[in-house]
């Protein structure tokens, strides 16, 4: 367990403890009487866990409890966010964007429906749906699919069988900067063999204001999210659980882009069967089938002047399943996961000529691409002794793409006359990690290799306009798989009073997929600078290192600090885009009985390693100051939690390296969250 605040670790352990106790009550088959050898050594997992919220959990540890998921994910040293608007930020893991990373919801694969990446997966879930986000760096994240940078698994929130009877909660929040109103509620019921959780969250925000009082136009959004999970346990050790999330955002502005979104709607459903065998090396066997569907419609009607009006809807549907078994055999803690998904991604562009008698102009920007992927993932975590472990994992996947639309296929054949409608790829992955932890001193190192397939846009995109570098991008179905060779190392020391952890990872990525301008082509988007075709560079290298420090002044006062450095260059020594400059964070946290408070400074150094070739410019350094305080009240039947604070106290005007087209971030923002639980 990575150090992410000793208190969070305690909560996580608490939850584990409750679940184990619960299981013991519900499954009379006494675990102790099993014949297998129970290994008391649990090897360390190099996973970072970001706790988002425990259902009906009032003790709000996070600075701003009702923040959007994006704000939560940003706390990690390994995650950066590309911002195009007020929310729906694209998470980057190890400085690598969506194409090279994997974001799943409870192990389910899900893909955005927007060609311009306005809808990363995080935009379709709410803090009320999730309990934590598990981050795995590099090939260790290859459990649910092929990745290079790593994976984030957003885990669903479920009270489960822990709080019997009826429970309810109401959350409200308000932020002054964008006049964001947040209201949410949760109603749960549980008895010994059945539980149902339902929750609802609604957000409405107007345009936000940047540091010097400058209003950022077209940054409004409104969304609601409703979800439910229900479980039924039978035969003492079997659980059947169904889950559904419906998320709908309307009128979402994207100040960094030429268009906004009129509708972003997702339905995420799953059915899981979990089985805890009675006496077997397999401790847990989980099988899940799922379906999700996303509709995304871009909208340019709110912009003052558009060269030509266009409708740009996109759809993404995914069916999938996985079957995962975890077990222990002597000192081996193993996982075997068979997973498969089928996705259909299609996006259109219809343009309306000024002369209404003229026929509409239509083309596919994603030509109805079907992806079918199946993989087997195996992991063995061997506890060598009580302070060291060696983890091996490997996966082999088959990735199949097909362009299903005849019109779409013919469009791409303009560029690739001999292109076939379908292509099959094999995606292997292998990783090994050693970790040691004794007397507070820990270290570890790892070596891994993996491949990923090009994304739908990289392989089959047709005139996708990128407003960052103002080029139209054309996909390339003949791209080879990207290969990544990575090494990582970490070292840490922990005492009662303080802890320090430093980690570094180095990626050598061959066949690095990137768009390169083709001077012979004329762009289609009015005002574009040219056309880029996706091609592969010989290789690129990315290096990230981060330092996490904690010092416990007293029982009540703690200091936390983070420092992150990144480096990224291609084989011709040109800077890669979206590589973070030196990043730092420092916070002082106070907690006594029911009161807690923190003050934090967060900033970036000047971005000197920027890439003009990819459309970047030099971003100046900045630092902002945040403050928050919270108090919890216990009445007879009601628990009440209050949290208030100020972000960017000094009202600094700033923009970061990952803000698309340099849109500025929020200026001073007062927030208040009030929550009740019954």
């Amino acid at each position, binding site marked *: 367990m990575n150090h992410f605040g000793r208190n969070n670790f305690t909560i996580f352990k608490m939850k584990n403890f409750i679940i184990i106790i619960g299981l013991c009550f519900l499954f009379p088959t006494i675990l102790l009487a099993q014949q297998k050898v129970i290994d008391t050594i649990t090897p360390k997992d190099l996973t970072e866990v970001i706790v988002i919220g425990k259902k009906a959990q009032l003790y709000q540890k996070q600075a701003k409890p009702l923040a959007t998921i994006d704000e939560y994910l940003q706390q990690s040293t390994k995650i950066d966010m590309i911002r195009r608007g007020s929310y729906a930020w694209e998470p980057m893991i190890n400085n690598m964007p969506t194409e090279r990373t994997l974001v799943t919801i409870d192990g389910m694969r899900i893909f955005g429906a927007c060609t311009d990446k306005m809808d990363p997966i995080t935009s379709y879930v709410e803090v009320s749906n999730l309990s934590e986000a598990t981050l795995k760096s590099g090939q260790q994240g290859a459990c649910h699919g092929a990745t290079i940078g790593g994976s984030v698994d957003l885990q669903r929130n479920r009270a489960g069988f822990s709080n019997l009877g009826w429970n309810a909660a109401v959350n409200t929040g308000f932020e002054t900067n964008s006049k964001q109103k947040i209201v949410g509620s949760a109603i749960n019921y549980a008895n010994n063999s059945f539980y149902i959780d339902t929750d609802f969250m609604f957000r409405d925000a107007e345009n936000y204001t940047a540091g010097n009082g400058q209003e950022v136009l077209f940054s409004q959004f409104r969304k609601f999210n409703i979800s439910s999970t229900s479980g039924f346990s039978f035969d003492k050790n079997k659980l059947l659980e169904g889950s559904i999330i419906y998320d709908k955002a309307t009128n979402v502005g994207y100040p960094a882009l030429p268009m906004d979104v009129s509708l972003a709607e997702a339905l995420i459903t799953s059915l899981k069967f979990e089985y805890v065998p009675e006496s077997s090396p397999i401790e847990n066997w989980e099988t899940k089938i799922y379906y999700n569907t996303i509709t995304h419609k871009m909208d340019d009607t709110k912009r003052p002047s558009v*060269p*030509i009006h266009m409708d740009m809807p996109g759809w993404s549907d995914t069916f999938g399943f996985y079957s995962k078994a975890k077990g222990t055999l002597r000192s081996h803690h193993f996982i075997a996961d068979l997973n498969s998904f089928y996705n259909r991604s299609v996006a259109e*562009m219809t*343009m309306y*000529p*000024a*002369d209404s008698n*003229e*026929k*509409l*102009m*239509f*083309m596919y920007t994603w030509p109805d691409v079907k992806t079918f992927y199946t993989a087997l993932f195996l992991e063995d975590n061997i506890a060598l002794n009580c302070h060291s472990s060696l983890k091996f994992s490997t996966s082999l996947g088959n990735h199949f793409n097909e362009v299903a639309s005849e*019109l779409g*296929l*013919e*469009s791409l*054949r*303009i*560029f690739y*006359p001999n292109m076939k409608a379908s292509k099959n790829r094999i995606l292997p992955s292998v990783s090994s990690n050693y970790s040691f932890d004794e007397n507070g001193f820990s270290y570890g190192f790892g070596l891994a290799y993996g491949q990923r397939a090009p994304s739908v846009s990289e392989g089959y995109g*047709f*005139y996708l306009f990128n407003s960052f570098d103002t080029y139209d991008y054309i996909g390339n179905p003949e791209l080879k798989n990207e290969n990544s060779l990575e090494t990582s190392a970490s070292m840490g020391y922990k005492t009662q009073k303080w802890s320090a952890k430093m980690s570094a990872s180095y990626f050598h990525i061959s066949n690095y997929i990137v768009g390169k301008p083709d001077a*012979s*082509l*004329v*762009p*289609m*988007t*009015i*005002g574009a600078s040219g056309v880029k075709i996706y091609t592969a560079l010989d290789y690129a290298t990315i290096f990230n290192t981060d330092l996490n420090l904690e010092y416990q002044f007293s029982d009540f006062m703690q200091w936390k600090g983070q420092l992150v450095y990144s480096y990224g260059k291609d084989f011709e020594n040109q800077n890669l885009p979206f590589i973070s400059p030196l990043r730092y964070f420092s916070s002082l946290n106070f907690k006594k009985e029911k009161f807690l408070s923190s003050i934090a400074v967060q900033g970036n150094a000047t971005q000197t390693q920027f890439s003009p070739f990819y459309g970047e410019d030099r971003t100046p350094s900045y630092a902002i100051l945040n403050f928050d305080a919270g108090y919890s009240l216990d009445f007879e039947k009601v628990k009440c939690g209050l949290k208030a604070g100020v972000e960017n106290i000094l009202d600094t005007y700033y923009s970061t390296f990952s803000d698309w087209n340099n849109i500025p971030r929020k200026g001073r923002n007062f927030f208040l969250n009030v929550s009740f639980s019954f």
Partner: protein
Amino acid sequence: MKFLRILPLVLLTILASCSNNEEPAVDELYGLSKIKEITNTTHTIELYKHMGGLEQGYNEIALKIKDNTTNQYIKNATVTWTPVMHMAMMNHSCPKSPVTKVSTDGLVYEGYIVFQMAQNATEYWDLKIDYTINGTSYTMTSVIDVPASAKQRVTTFTGSDGVRYIAAYVDPHHPKVGVNDMVAGVWKMQDMMTFPVVDNYKLKIDPRMPSMGNHSSPNNVDLVQTVAGDLYNGKLSLTMTGYWKINLQLLNAAGTVLKGETITDAVPASSIYFEIEF
């Protein structure tokens, strides 16, 4: 007994050979519809065309000749045709192909006519068909309806060499998104009644969408002739549906531009072009 075994086979053979004596199947006219009937005392000529009636531009026309007394179609006629436009000050013809049989055993004749201008209130086209059957010559003439085309399919111009040219769009009839095989024709005016095919020139194309920033498409192939006397072939690349203006430049065998301009920011369209909308 042996005979009984052979009987089905014999019957089958007889039936099969019977079908050879029937008239050829009607599929010679597949996709075509009758647009006109012209009659003289002895025969009726039926004119057929794909997709509606005649219009300004390139027209592929099929015809059948029926004997008025026997109601039988003539298989072995030699046909020529002369379209003439009757204008206020003069009469003139237009580019046309010879009329040939679709198949030796069939009843349908075909050819093309390029009407470089449309009729109007006072000026009209008529078609004179001369045909010979077994040494006897016949003729008939009728006024034909040639309205203007909705989109520009034919263009007439004087080249920098002083010669009067006609360029007409032939294919694709049904354009699709992607790379289309494009066919066009180039003729010149020799005199009022003679418009021969121009050989060995090049028709450069630059398709643009004027309603969308005048963007073009990649990987077009300029039109050239494969066989002398024939039409010109190339590739038309269309990235989306809608209205396209296919800007043209005509080059002679030496590579000199006789008419038409390259498209730039200052020159959004060429003086010669075709239009399609799909």
